[in-house]
């Protein structure tokens, strides 16, 4: 897989700082999982966090803090190491962080009809942590021209599309500035499936609204 479009360095830095909402964070992780370039960049940004932790003003800890910590490691000694189970990835198009969320292959997704040639599938995230969903668009379809109100990330999982900013295929991420207006056209002969994250939950309505607008005139 050759990746041509990566998240903005500012987005990777925010991911490393832990300040992206869950929806955006999962989308970055999904890309980072298959992109060694961005993984290295995230590690560099995390080193900033490490430096700031080292430089943090030390404050007094509880008088029994060390004794407590030593007791805790002893009682944890026999316990299994806190290793998480790897998600069962049944679909090569799904990097691990997304495979875990979906728990199914892309072929078994239950799609919701949005408009002719456009279907979507909501992915659960914690309350107040943005919205995350898959969008499936038929070949040749052009999405209505739209801008981006706030933070929004799109990662292509299958198929491809093109717009004024370039061509996007599997693994690519569109991390567009607010100012950019674009009208992506699916140029693959298969459906284009992408993962979309928006910052605020209300943004979801915005995106769907924009999609519906040309069909229903709302």
């Amino acid at each position, binding site marked *: 897989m050759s990746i041509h479009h990566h998240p903005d*360095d500012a987005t990777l830095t925010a991911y490393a*700082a832990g300040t992206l909402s869950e929806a955006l964070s999962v989308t970055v992780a999904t890309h980072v999982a298959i992109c060694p370039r961005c993984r290295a*960049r*995230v590690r560099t*940004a995390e080193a900033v966090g*490490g*430096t700031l932790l080292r430089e943090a003003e030390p404050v007094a800890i509880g008088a029994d803090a060390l004794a407590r910590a030593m007791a805790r*490691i002893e009682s944890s000694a026999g316990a299994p190491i806190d290793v998480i189970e790897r998600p069962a990835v049944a679909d090569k198009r799904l990097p691990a962080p997304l495979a875990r969320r979906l728990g199914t292959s892309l072929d078994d997704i239950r799609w919701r009809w949005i408009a002719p040639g456009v279907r979507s599938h909501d992915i659960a995230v914690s309350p107040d942590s943005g919205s995350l969903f898959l969008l499936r668009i038929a070949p040749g379809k052009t999405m209505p021209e739209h801008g981006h109100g706030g*933070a929004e990330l799109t990662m292509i999982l299958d198929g491809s599309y093109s717009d004024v900013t370039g061509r996007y295929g599997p693994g690519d991420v569109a991390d567009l500035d*607010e100012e950019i207006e674009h009208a992506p056209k699916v140029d693959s002969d298969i459906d284009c499936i992408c993962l979309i994250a928006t910052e605020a939950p209300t943004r979801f309505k915005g995106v769907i609204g924009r999609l519906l607008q040309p069909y229903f005139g709302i």
Partner: protein
Amino acid sequence: MTSLLVRIAEHRDRDAYQDLFVHFAPRIKGFLMRKGADSELAEELMQDTMLSVWTKASMYHPGRGSASTWIFTIARNLRIDRLRRESVRHFDDVDDLEISEDDTASDVTVVAQDDAVIASQERQLVARAMQDLPSEQAQVIRMSFVDDLSQSDIAERLSLPLGTVKSRMRLAYIKLRQALESEL
């Protein structure tokens, strides 16, 4: 500090753990309090962070940089999990992936020792590069890593367009990366 972590990982060395705790515990607590946690909560999260350092030590690997960077990511994830009540499994999935890649390295111990040196250089370089940042760039970096503010929150606090916050953060990042690449 990184060598302490290697001793914990390889030999479950309690003396090394104690040294690591004495050094990091007051800083982790201070770091968390700076983010708005009260003393009691910060102490709790600090204890949980340090317990994770022990239980996950074998998952620490060279690619993760210095001990303080790795501990930072543990504290970051615990904080998101407890305070924002959001899932952090996706961070673990990315780490897990790197660990399986490292497993293929032929001589892990040698790599780890070389890397301890690199990690300590990295630490100094980042610290220096941070000091050299223009104040407006250092400010957005601190607001995100220390105060835990999103880019939109920073934009609101500073009365700046989101695009300006993003470009300051991007510029800061580029400078830090250049500093690391030119020296390592």
